[in-house]
């Protein structure tokens, strides 16, 4: 069964450093997303991406965040200058034309120290 692959599975970074979280969505999917889950809390929407541009973003997705699909397969989330409160599990997801269910990756656990 096709999977959404995320790397790395765990990233530890110093506060103020830049991090790039990587995702390989399912190849024939058209819509791509990033969500995050702070430990013990709800899964929160960050951003959606379609046709090489952001289609929607949440209040969390401020100027420190950016997304890119550089080569038609990878989908990345960059946090420019990490803060302690950015520590969370970050999930990438993708879905096809009918948006009939989303496939989520296994997540990247980001720890900012």
């Amino acid at each position, binding site marked *: 069964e096709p999977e959404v692959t995320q790397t790395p599975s765990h990233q530890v970074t110093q506060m103020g450093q830049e991090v790039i979280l990587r995702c390989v969505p399912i190849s024939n999917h058209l819509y791509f997303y990033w969500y995050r889950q702070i430990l013990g809390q*709800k899964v*929160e929407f960050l951003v959606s991406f379609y046709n090489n541009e952001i289609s929607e973003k949440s209040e969390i997705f401020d100027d420190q965040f950016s997304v890119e699909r550089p080569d038609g397969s990878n989908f990345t989330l960059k946090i420019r200058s990490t803060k302690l409160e950015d520590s969370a599990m970050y999930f990438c997801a993708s879905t096809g034309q009918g948006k009939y*269910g989303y496939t989520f990756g296994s997540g990247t656990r980001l720890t900012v120290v």
Partner: protein
Amino acid sequence: SQQGEEDPQALSIQEGENATMNCSYKTSINNLQWYRQNSGRGLVHLILIRSNEREKHSGRLRVTLDTSKKSSSLLITASRAADTASYFCATDERTDKLIFGTGTRLQVFP
């Protein structure tokens, strides 16, 4: 309550018993989805029910949707220890994003 609130927050049952989880939401939706999350792991899509559907089955899962009450239920029949996980409902709020509930932590004892 907020969009996508599940109850109960936690549920403990014996193997073989049925588990019922409920979800309430506030706004109009195109569809409602249920996801499962094993501790510290990713989200697994279980089932999607569209706003014009009332009931859907998938294996041991049965989902109902009542749009007049803005609520949904997930029934897992003949539960197994491997069903132990957190279960989340997610609604689309007629936008391009999913709004997740707080989840129900299900513990199935062998």
